[in-house]
């Protein structure tokens, strides 16, 4: 049977904007290896906040996250960076590619961090670009690519170091329907054919449709799991 790959323990993050907002309030969730997980909920319910905590992009105020049994709280900044490098792939809503690097270089970057020999990194980079249907655009700069294409490059980059889990915050939120369908199909394929674990924030029902787990949030609290 599949096992828990990631879980949170009483995870908390609050903000104070005049009034206190508990954006992530005592959240306990479990993610199974190889599963497709979707976080849904109204705007401002804490989905992005939760996802960035899962990705180690932000530190929780209290509580902990375990990835393959490893506690985030026990890691120092260097170790947390290594965890992101080796085990996590993060896809942002606004792609966040490095503007002065080509598509291929962007995809190769995480592999350079793991000291993958350049030749192998290049080969895998090209494979990944082919996987996301961009083999012909490998030498284009992000600005020369459309939004959907940039997002595909970002997905290829997230896949580069074969992460244990891919986290994506509204990866299709900024794309038109047709492009979106392509990306959704790509995620589905990666999940079903390669057993890639996904945790995805989305408003997109087409993504929730094939999710193994839908985590619904309201006011920082998981109301349905």
């Amino acid at each position: 049977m599949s096992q828990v790959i990631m879980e949170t323990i009483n995870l908390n993050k609050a903000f104070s904007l005049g009034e206190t907002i508990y954006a992530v309030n005592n959240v306990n969730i479990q993610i199974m290896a190889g599963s497709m997980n979707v976080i849904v909920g109204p705007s401002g319910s804490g989905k992005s906040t939760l996802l960035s905590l899962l990705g180690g992009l932000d530190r929780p105020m209290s509580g902990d996250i375990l990835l393959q049994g490893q506690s985030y709280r026990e890691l120092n900044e260097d170790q947390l960076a290594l965890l992101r490098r080796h085990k996590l792939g993060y896809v942002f809503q606004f792609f966040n590619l490095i503007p002065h690097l080509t598509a291929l270089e962007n995809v190769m970057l995480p592999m350079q961090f793991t000291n993958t020999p350049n030749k192998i990194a290049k080969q895998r980079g090209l494979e990944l670009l082919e996987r996301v249907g961009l083999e012909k655009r490998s030498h284009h700069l992000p600005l020369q690519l459309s939004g959907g294409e940039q997002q595909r490059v970002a997905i290829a980059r997230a896949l580069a170091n074969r992460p244990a889990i891919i986290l994506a915050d509204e990866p299709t939120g900024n794309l038109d329907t047709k492009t979106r369908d392509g990306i959704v199909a790509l995620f589905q394929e990666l999940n079903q054919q390669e057993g890639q674990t996904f945790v995805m924030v989305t408003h997109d029902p087409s993504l929730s449709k094939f999710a193994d787990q839908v985590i619904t949030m309201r006011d920082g609290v998981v109301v349905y799991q």
Partner: protein
Amino acid sequence: MSKMLRLARQRIRTDWRIYLAALLLTSLTCSAYLIYQSYMGQVGLSFGRKTAELDLLADFQVELAASDLLPEAVQPTGAWKNRPIPELKATGRSLQLASPYGQLSVLALQPGTSYNGPLPLAGQVLVNEKLASGLGLPTSGNLTLANPETSAEITLQIAGSFSAGSTSGHVLLLYQDLEPLLTNSGYNVFLYDGADQLKPQSALDALNRFYPDSLILTSQQAQLVAQQAVRDTYQGFGNLVLLVFVFLTLGVLTALMLSFIDSKRELSVLKSIGLMPRELWCLFLFSGLATAVGGFLLGVGLTYGASRVMETRGVAISLLPHHILSLGWRVLLAYVLAIAAPAGLARRATVNQLLYDQPIPLFSNKVTILRRHRQLFEDELAQGWQVVQLPVIEGVLEGFVFKKEGDQVKVGEVLAFSPGWWGLSYTEYVATIDGEVAIWREESGILAIKPKADNEAAH
């Protein structure tokens, strides 16, 4: 390592204007420092400290009695520098005057002083043979001499020539004839017979005989006086010059902070895919040091160029290795200090803080005990409770509590969190015992944990 170099290069390329500004600032600072050091070196000082003996041009310095006092200082001529220790034979004055035959070196002697050759009479001038043949001077007729500064003129009769081996190249006349051309009077030339090989003391004695009312210093004493004067003038200034390195640090700091702010998004992306804080340091260090080295080399180069140009104008700028070295480590120090701020910020920041321009906390602390009003919880504390207090300012709780009354807590759990001023710091309130939240008062910020009863813990 090489990937950090590549990223650093990329960083510089993206923000090249900022790095260029830092580089130029560095090179100008370097240049100013080297020129200043060279100048101070020439007067035997470095930041007010004496580093060398002054190479004064006169063997003696004579301070005339009040009656003979000069309105202005007289320049030493340098003509008799490095001579064997003299016996004083004559005093007079040498200076450069204009003549129809070009500029002439003039030696004006006091009447009655001895000179190894014939002395001119009043109104007469004697011409050095070599000079005469070299310039085509006649050995009879009149010679008009003019002071180029005052345009005053005198006309003297050329009475003949003399041959002089060592002191060649001048015309000889009497001091009194020269006086109409002088803006000040005084004597700065002491002729002596090298053959006599007398000790400085006897030369000094001779001077004392000649100027009984004057203060006469040996060149060593004169050096001390001169250096003291320079030191008094420049000591404070010398330390002020070190301020340029403070400015350099601030300038480079500003530049690197600008570049950091400009690159926050990119840094956040790099961090999100696993760039380590340690590597981030390298990134900043490399891009900073590249600028430092570039600016340093350019500065030294500029100074070298300036020294070559100034040399043709008779101004010496000396580039000494130990000055360049001391400059090098100062520039390095300035950069390391300047790099520390943005690199430290970038290092500490989480991806979200960089990506969404959130404040980056610089300090954090953990609170586990009650500091004030302990007497109010005397009993509870005695029974092993843990009590902490969150800040409450004007009735408003400054922080977040993640537990409510009745919740179980475990050692090491963060119970509450309070952000500090401007997000620059934060405080975590951490449980030191296993137990249950027994008290939470929002109005006073008091949070108390009752330890787990032993029999309960046994289960």
